[in-house]
């Protein structure tokens, strides 16, 4: 099982990794990317099983990443881990094909609930 964590903040990638392990997925292989463009290349090369992506990032945002993946026909489940919690962002995310949204601040139980269907 491979999980790609996409966030421009190394601190947040570290926290997400810790929460994923605490949620019981400590045997998963964790891949990391710093922005959407970096993630797109990683997904093409490494085919992760699930992507956990921030929304606001330089180079390419999380929603642009999701739209680019779907335009290429890549169906990897992508969930957002973001501080953007407004209803309009949620609607845009799910319309684009997001699998779930985890809002910061979060707990390990959020990852347990959202990742379980893909494990």
């Amino acid at each position: 099982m491979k999980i790609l964590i996409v966030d421009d903040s190394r601190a947040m990638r570290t926290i997400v990794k810790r929460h994923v392990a605490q949620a019981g997925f400590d045997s998963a292989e964790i891949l990391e990317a710093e922005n959407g463009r970096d993630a797109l290349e990683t997904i093409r090369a490494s085919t992760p099983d699930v992507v956990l992506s921030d929304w606001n990032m330089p180079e390419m945002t999380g929603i642009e990443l999701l739209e680019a993946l779907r335009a290429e026909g890549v169906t990897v489940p992508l969930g957002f881990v973001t501080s953007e919690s407004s209803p309009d962002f949620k609607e845009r995310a799910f319309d684009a094909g997001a699998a779930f949204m985890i809002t910061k601040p979060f707990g390990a139980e959020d990852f347990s609930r959202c990742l379980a269907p893909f494990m």
Partner: protein
Amino acid sequence: MHVHVTEPDLADIVEGATSTMLGTVLGALAPSGEAPSEASAACAVGASVQFTGEWSGALVIGCDEMIGNEAAAAMFGCDTNNVAADDLSDALGELANMIAGNVKPLLPGAITLSLPTVVQGSELRLGIPGAAPTVGVTYRRGSCVFSVEIYERSQGPRKQS
């Protein structure tokens, strides 16, 4: 449109974000009742996120080096003595982003968040040019300080059509 975020609203968001993501690091801090501008002379790190759209302003957080290092260490899972300057900036920027994201739904209209900007120095005078502070919270533990403040930009007079 004026911001209607109250001090208790902001305190709830700040305390929720810090307690969930940083554990007990900021739990030992107590509200001081000071305006953040009064405490900013003690700040060595400042981070801001801009709000743009139907309402315009910014969220600014500030803290001294000790609290900044404790927050970064909690995020990275390392010792407070082993926090690099880049990691301190990363951690405080992410904290500002998280708090701003949770403030955003309380602001009027469609709003976009900027990426965070972080400054480090000593006796920082934190502020946003062309914007006025509207609501803020300050926490202290001895000489250590952590503050969060929301600024509102003047929209200027509306043209009559």
